[in-house]
């Protein structure tokens, strides 16, 4: 069995910034437990000698020339803003500090 507990689900909700109510925590705990049991089998064949693949088609050194472009107008930047103050986005009080 996997180690999914309601406390873990609640912690994951905090990390993912999704406020979960108790009913959701309970439901997700059960569902995730079943899913994780099922997908944990990847470790059966993932032996140390197998390299990881992060990109399906291997490429490297894909670069862009240092030439300006693609800039949005101020109106475009702000056109979907839920709330703005003059030319900036406005958010309510921030509790924690930046990382």
């Amino acid at each position, binding site marked *: 069995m996997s180690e999914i507990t309601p406390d873990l689900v609640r*912690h994951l909700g*905090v*990390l993912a*910034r999704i406020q979960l109510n108790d009913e959701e925590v309970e439901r997700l705990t059960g569902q995730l437990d079943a899913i994780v049991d099922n997908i944990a089998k990847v470790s059966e064949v993932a032996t140390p000698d197998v390299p990881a693949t*992060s*990109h399906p088609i291997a*490429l*490297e*050194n*894909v*670069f*862009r*020339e*240092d*030439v*300006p*472009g*693609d*800039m*949005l107008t*101020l109106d475009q*930047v*702000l056109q979907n803003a839920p709330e703005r*103050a*003059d*030319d*900036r*986005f*406005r*958010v*309510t*009080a*921030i509790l*924690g*500090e*930046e*990382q």
Partner: protein
Amino acid sequence: MAAKVALMDFDKALELFEPVLGFEVHVELNTRTKMFSPAANPAHPDNHGAAPNTLVAPVDMGLPGALPVVNETAIRSSISLGLALGCSIAPSSRFARKNYFYPDLGKNYQISQYDEPIAFEGAVEVELSDGTTVTVDIERAHMEEDAGKLTHMGGAAGRIQGAEFSLVDYNRAGVPLVEIVTKPIFGAEHRAPEIAKAYVRTIRDIVIGLGISEARLERGNLRCDANVSLRPRGQEKLGTRTETKNVNSMRSVERAVRYEIQRQAAILAEGGTITQETRHWHEDTGTTSPGRPKSDADDYRYFPEPDLLPVAPSPQLIDELRAALPEPPAARRRRLQGEWGFTDLEFQDVVNGGLLAEVDATVAAGASPASARKWWTGEITRVANARGAEPQALVSPADVAALQKLVDAGTLTDKLARQVLEGVIDGEGSPQKVVDARGLAVVSDDGALIAAIDDALAAQPDVLAKIKDGKVQAAGAVIGAVMKAMKGQADAARVRELILERAAQ
């Protein structure tokens, strides 16, 4: 403010504890565009002071569907910096996502490098004020993007605590950064604060030499996080460290390290424990205050950035960039002292003031070494101290050279030049502009001078007789009167000549 913090006397602290230092310096690259987007880079001098949210491409504000693409020039700058730090360049490195939510982070992840940085294992020679050098080992230098800028409104001005709301500007989001991380620095002892300052100065000299950053600390082009921990004498295990964030001048780095040593020593001596946390430096009070403690919410869930591919610089590229490196700062210092003909004392004066790059640039702009040194270590430093600023933040080397040119041409006396400098510092424009606007040029019209001399002689009739008698030194009183009448805008030597001519008539 919080309750008064106890500090232990610095020497006493060092008797009881050994300080261990570490630094993370973020260098903003001055590329034309951002790290992962073609939006203009606010850390490029052309874009300084741009209006909020006007330097933004879709990926910088995390618009749905937008994708990052790596800036080739930023890669080259990062490799050059890695080489200048004596690092090995990774044959293959990659980007990773550092996941955390914060309103200044458009995507709510920062693209950074994690387990595979572009440069690792280096060392830099750091020269102290007494001419000795200390080697600081570099753990790694990695590429990443900057976040946007938050302005906190309401509550205590500008502070996050108590703010009612915050405003977000994404111009800075995506500015290319290289983060340089040192290994723990042991054996710094009482020189710890000085090493801190000298290390940051060395990094600054290196990036200026490479031309890859504007390197202005006060603008955030260089940002230093200083890690300090103490361990009791004889103890093997490292103490708990604090990370003092974004100290924005070299002087502050020195002060912050000293303060943390004294603060931590007082706590430890009382049997207390140090909290692992970030701390904020307050320039005004010269103190640090607690910030965010480390917690299990610091789970950044790093994983390889799937939208970007590995960076695998060819050996040829690395050789090419290595060949183009400017000389290392220590060698450069030896060379410059020879070229400039400064005494050891004069040269240390420049180095200790962190003004080597400025003097060099001023000489390159046409001033004599002696005059460049005189300006930077003299008047400019005096004004900087008076204003609590960094000398290099006040005026550009080009302006200093232009100012000296006006002195050399006789347009300005030394005294007038100091007034012009003040105008330049106050943002009135170039020296010539200040001269024109304030009408400060030396009066070179002999007619006006002669008129003033005649007035002065008329007021002191006995003087002319004395001069005629051969008591030339009597002219001094008239020169003073003329200079006063001309509001200082006259060349005293010329005035003296004219007085003697008059007397000879």
